[in-house]
């Protein structure tokens, strides 16, 4: 299934900046960065549980927020991209 993950991390403090870096790093490990704090991750339920767990341990629930959008397996119909920054299709042909 395709998950869309977005976050807001409060970066007014150094600890906040550190959390931001750590959240971003985890998201990159699991998916594709499509905009600054927006990630598309093609995951199975176990991988999602793993990622969810990791992220929620990093953030400070008082100051930061995370949002998960379930796009399912029919996700291609639900995403339309306009403008700069090409995104690759994880189920498409990958030739470099």
């Amino acid at each position, binding site marked *: 299934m395709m998950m869309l993950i977005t976050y807001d991390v409060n970066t007014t403090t150094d600890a906040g900046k550190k959390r931001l870096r750590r959240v971003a790093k985890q998201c990159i490990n699991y998916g594709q960065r499509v905009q600054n704090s927006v990630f598309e991750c093609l995951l199975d339920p176990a991988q999602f549980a793993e990622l969810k767990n990791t992220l929620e341990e990093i953030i400070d629930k008082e100051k930061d927020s995370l949002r998960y959008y379930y796009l399912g397996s029919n996700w291609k119909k639900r995403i339309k991209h306009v403008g700069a920054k090409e995104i690759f299709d*994880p189920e498409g042909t990958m*030739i470099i």
Partner: protein
Amino acid sequence: MRKMLNVLYITNPEAYLAKDGENLVVRVQDEEIFRTPIHYLEGIVTFGYMGASPALLGMCVEKGVTVSFLTAHGKHQATVHGTPKGNVLLRRKQYRLADSESESAKLASMFIIGKIANCRTVLRRFMSDYGDKVQIEEVDRVSKIMARNVLRLGKELLLDEVRGIEGESAQMYFSVFDQLIICHKDHFFMKGRNRRPPLDNMNALLSFLYSLLLHETRSALETVGLDPYVGFLHRDRPGRTGLALDLMEEFRPYLVDRLALSLINRRQVTGDGFLKKESGGVIMKENVRKIVIEAWQKRKREEITHPFLEKKIYVGLLPYAQALLLARHLRGDLDRYPPFVWK
């Protein structure tokens, strides 16, 4: 059933593969041109000389991603994979059966039944599609001989007899293969199979696709815990993946020959995409290679109802499904190995 994951093909000779976190990063002259989480992939196939960092290879091994290095022409050079997975008892059984001439002959017959039956379907499909436009008497005659050969393989045979039938069938099949090519006859023709190096465009195209298929059958066997090096029909030779070659037989006509024919007959590839080297060998140009890989990947994402499992699966999972059935047969859960026969 296993999920079908993607295969990344690297054809840019300047690409360098590296690891960053859990990502695979492709760099060209120190500039990052591609990045993907490693769990999106089940295989990486690279063509031509290029580098991959040891850290990346380590991660691929750990995650079960097979990395194959091929030459620019598609000849297999090396594959990186981790410690053999799966059940040692299963592999022992495989070795034992491979040591027995009569057991090997039984299994070899099955692979070849699959191959010949599928070759025959390639011919029959052609006859029903083009029978009214071209001369097909010869194709029809060969198709009938193939049907007889399939029946001959149903009996108990010696390994050499199986080889004899396979050789005769392959020779007959390729003798009419030329008639199945209906476009660009000046550039594409079949006057018999040749390889290492392929001497004409058609053989170059087939060889290239066969090497892509070999990557798939090999990974499939490793996934189910079988040893791709120890075959039944193809006997041991250092560096030769005998069982992967065995398993590949039944897929050659269905997955490769038909794809090659439709690429030519639909004019997706043309004669000017091939280069004749001074040595006489023929190689494909970069752009044709891309077209072929794209068609191959598209084909793998089509769906088919598996004749034995009676389940809808991706064409790309067929080698895996057959490897699984083979493992079940070796374990004794199935009385015989059911080859993939395309109707």
